[in-house]
Structure formats: C-alpha cells, structure tokens
C-alpha cells in the first residue's frame, strides 16, 4: 500500500473530506459532510434512499466533481488526478453494469485492459478472483443467465481486477435474497481480513452492523451521527426496544395511554416502539394501564433505532 505518512507520523487517511458538497442544479444532494477513512478500515454510509450516499461515493470514486468543500482520495485531488486515483480503486456501483452478452471471463478481461494490465496478469487474476467469488465453473458461461447474487459477486471480482488499495461498494446487497446476501457478506468479510480498505453504503442496518468498523449515519445529505455500530447504539439508543402491535384500528386509542413509558415512545404506522433499559418493567406497566396489544416483542436496540431516534423516520420506507 502506497500510503505516505503525514508529518505527525500517523498514516494519512485514504479519504479526507471537509465540508464536502454536491449540488445538482438547485438541489443539494450532499450538504457539507466531513469524513475520514483510514487504511484497513471498513467504513460505512448508512442512510435511506436519497440520503446522498451514491453522490458521495461517486465523488470519492473520482467520477463526479465536488461542487464545494475539500476532498482528498489516496492523498490526491480527485478532479486533477482522477485517472491516477481511479487506477488504484475498485468500484462496485449501485448498478451491475455488466455486459450480459459476454462471458464471465470476458467481462473481467475487458475491464482489466481498461487498467492497462498485461494479459498474463489478467489471466492469473481472473482465475484467482473467480475462485474467490466462487464462480470458477462459470468462467465461460454468459452473464445473462446468472442469478442476481452471482452477478453481484462477479461485479466484486471485477472491482478487484486491478488489485485496488480501496474498494467502494454502493449498496452491495440491495435486491438480493437473504441467502445471497449472506454469501456476499462472507466474501466482503474475506476482503476485510486481507486488509483491503472498504467503503460501503447501505440502507440495511444489519449489513452496516455486520461489516462496518465505523460508520456515519446519513440523512438528507448530512451526517447525523458517527461511530462504531455498538458505540452508536450505546450513545443514541436504550438497551432494549419493546415493539407493540395492536389489533387494527386500536393503536390510535392506545397511544395516549403509553405516554411517559420507557425513555421514548415512537409511533410507526403498524406498531409502537418503546425504548427502555428495563423492558420487563415497561411491559408490566403496559398491562397495568389496561392495554392489550396483539403482540409484544422485546429485542435489543439496533442501528435502525438509532436512525429512527435521530431523524424520526425509518431507514426503509
């Protein structure tokens, strides 16, 4: 890794953004964010659709020029040094953008040539990477008939063809079934263990919890919280959450009676969430107040609750 130390001796961050802004016409998609990503880290942007995650990733990937603020990627200026930066990045975009009429192997070979890698190196890497993403026996089959999970794994292999210093993954598992998501997480875990720096965006809180060492919670172009997943939960949510579901139509009447319970009561269209450090006591009190919810579920707090607490909205609408 070609990461020169900064004057004070600690290694320079791979990504350094200060008051970074992206506007499309009058619309501000990214509204002055500060981000630092260190080498070897798995860093996440967690936020709902439209939060500005892809816009941020495209600026970091040196494909979209920032409108305002400062941005350094791998110590370089993405506007001036775009080609040098992109030569050292791996990118898994939100769309697969695979050539479906070509074979798995050819998709990788063509991509490798964009980086001007010698053909012999490309051949070796294709073997290695298809092995890594478990598509070895699909090398000569067309992309078109592959499953969604397989295509996504192929895109990950493609992003690694240039042996990048850092990999950017924009919603790596959106639209996949649970089994395919787990297979993909396992591969990304493998990358992490190899020491590859990962930056990923997601609107799945479980994905963020599983993969990210550190993350920022993004909403409407701004960062609303930052930290390790466990730290964010500890800071912004209580230990437990009680989910109450009422029979149809009864939630409205029940709501006033829940007043003051736990630390915080949040009403969602289909259920009520009460956060508390003593869930048992809250449940007892619910019954004492004469309420009869159809179901009562006690669970530990997640990043979803952090997001809800900070923005008043859910991650997935």
């Amino acid at each position: 890794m070609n990461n020169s130390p900064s004057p004070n001796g600690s290694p320079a961050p791979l990504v350094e953004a200060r008051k970074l802004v992206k506007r499309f016409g009058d619309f501000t998609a990214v509204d002055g964010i500060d981000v630092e990503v260190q080498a070897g880290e798995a860093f996440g942007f967690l936020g709902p659709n439209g939060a500005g995650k892809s816009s941020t990733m495209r600026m970091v990937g040196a494909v979209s020029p920032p409108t305002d603020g400062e941005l350094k990627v791998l110590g370089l200026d993405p506007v001036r040094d775009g080609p040098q930066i992109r030569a050292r990045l791996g990118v898994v975009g939100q769309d697969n953008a695979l050539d479906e009429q070509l074979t798995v192997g050819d998709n990788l070979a063509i991509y490798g040539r964009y980086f001007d890698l010698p053909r012999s190196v490309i051949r070796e890497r294709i073997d290695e990477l298809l092995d890594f993403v478990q598509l070895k026996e699909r090398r000569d089959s067309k992309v078109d008939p592959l499953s969604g999970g397989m295509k996504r794994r192929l895109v990950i292999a493609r992003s690694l063809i240039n042996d990048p210093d850092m990999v950017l993954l924009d919603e790596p598992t959106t639209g996949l079934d649970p089994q395919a998501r787990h297979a993909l997480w396992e591969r990304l875990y493998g990358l992490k263990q190899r020491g590859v720096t990962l930056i990923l965006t997601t609107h799945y809180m479980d994905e963020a919890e599983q993969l990210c060492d550190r993350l920022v919670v993004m909403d409407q172009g701004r960062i609303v919280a930052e930290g390790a997943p466990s730290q964010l939960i500890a800071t912004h949510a209580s230990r437990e959450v009680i989910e109450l579901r009422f029979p149809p139509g009864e939630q409205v009447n029940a709501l006033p009676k829940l007043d003051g319970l736990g630390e915080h009561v949040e009403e969602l269209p289909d259920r009520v969430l009460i956060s508390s450090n003593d869930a048992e006591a809250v449940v007892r009190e619910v019954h004492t107040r004469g309420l009869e919810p159809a179901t009562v579920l006690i669970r530990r707090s997640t990043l979803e609750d952090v997001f809800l607490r900070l923005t008043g909205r859910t991650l997935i609408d």
Partner: protein
Amino acid sequence: MATPIAVRVLEGHLREYRHTWRGTTISSIATPVLFLAAMGLGLGALVDGGRGVDPAGDITYLAWLAPGLLAVSAMQAGAGDGAFPVMAGLQWIRTYHAVVATPVRPGDLLIGNLIWATIRLTVVGAVFVGVAVAFGAMALGPGLAALAPAVLTGIATCAAVSAFMATRKSDLAMSGLFRFVIVPLFLFSGAFFPLSELPAMVEPVARLNPVWHGVELTRGVALDVPTALHWAIHAGVLSTVFVVGTFLGSIAFARVLRA
C-alpha cells in the same frame, strides 16, 4: 509503455465482436446486397431502358447505384453504432458508468467507439465491394478506393448520432431519430436517384443533406466521374460533421458520466 486509453476501449469492442460478429456482419452485408440485387437489376432494367442515369449513356443504373449504396449503408451502420450501444452504455445497462470508474475518461470512450466503427465499417464495406465486383457493378480498384469516403460518411453519422443520443434519456428519442431523420436522409441522399430529378425548388434543400455529400464523393471515386461540387467541399462537409459530432459527443458523454 502505456497503451493509449482509446485503444483499450477498442480492445473491448474487439473481444465483444468475437461473440457477436455473425449477426451484425450478416445483417450489415445482406441488406445492401439485397438492395443491389433488387434495385440494381430489377429497377435498373427499367431505368436503363428509359432515360437512364447517365445522359452520356455509359453508366448502367447498377454501376451508378452500387457506390451510392456503399455510402448509405455505411451511414446506416454508423447511425446504428451511435445509437444502440450508446443508449445501452449510458442509460439501459449503464456499462459506460463502470468503464469510467477506471482510468478511462468519457472522451476516450467515445473515441474508442469511433475507431471501432471505422474498422467495422471498413470491413463490412470491403465485403460489399467484393460482392458488387462479382455482380459486375464495380471495378475492384476504384471500389476499394471509394471505401474511404463511404467510411467517412459512416463515422461522421456515428459521431453525430452518438452526440445526440447522449443527450436523451429515453429510447423514444431513438425511434424518432431513425424515423424522422435517418430514413429521410437515406432516401434523399442521391443514392437511388439523382437529386436533379427532384423539383427545382427542392433540390437545393436536399443538397444540404450531409449524406448526399458522402454519396457524391463515393460515387465520384468509384466511377471516376466528376462530383457535383469540388471534392474538397464534399470531404469538408463530412469532416466537419465528424469533428463537430465528436466534440459535442465528448461533452455530452461527460455530462452524463461525470455528473
């Protein structure tokens, strides 16, 4: 030494072509050959039996039509290459978005595409010349020389169509482009009948058609006959369309890919 970036894009086209050459080559050769047979022989008998295309009387309709067809089929193939792959790359499959995440820049992508179009149009055109020679419609040497203006017509169209399509979001624009622009330019290009047959008021308008300049130049070279205007004017019009198309196309590609 680093491979020029546009050449890397070209390599991608070549690798893709290994899988797709049959379909695309057959259609881009079969169509003009069918036209040559049907119109050159069938219609030709009628035309040559009447006033003919050449008042001096030497040139058969078949021989007159062949270079025109060479130019307009290059133009059509160029339009196709500038429309479908560009729409797919920018909007439908978005493959271009993955390409420009590498050291390849939007302009490299367009130029690589145009180099590829040049090669493909030359190969397809050469096969057409071979067929036309077999029909007795062309002489081999002048026919091959006429490839140059025909291919220039094709890549000028390709550049202009690429530039236009890159500014569009939906495929509706594509059918509109073919129906209302490409087909009229094809029909009124002077490939099938001399523009002088049009009403006197219409002819000057038809001469604004850049494809007519391509047909005129290609025919001039293939038949070794004088062109309507000085050859440099015909070549200049085509080159201008090519250069302006490429310039605007680079801007349009960057607007989409570097938003």
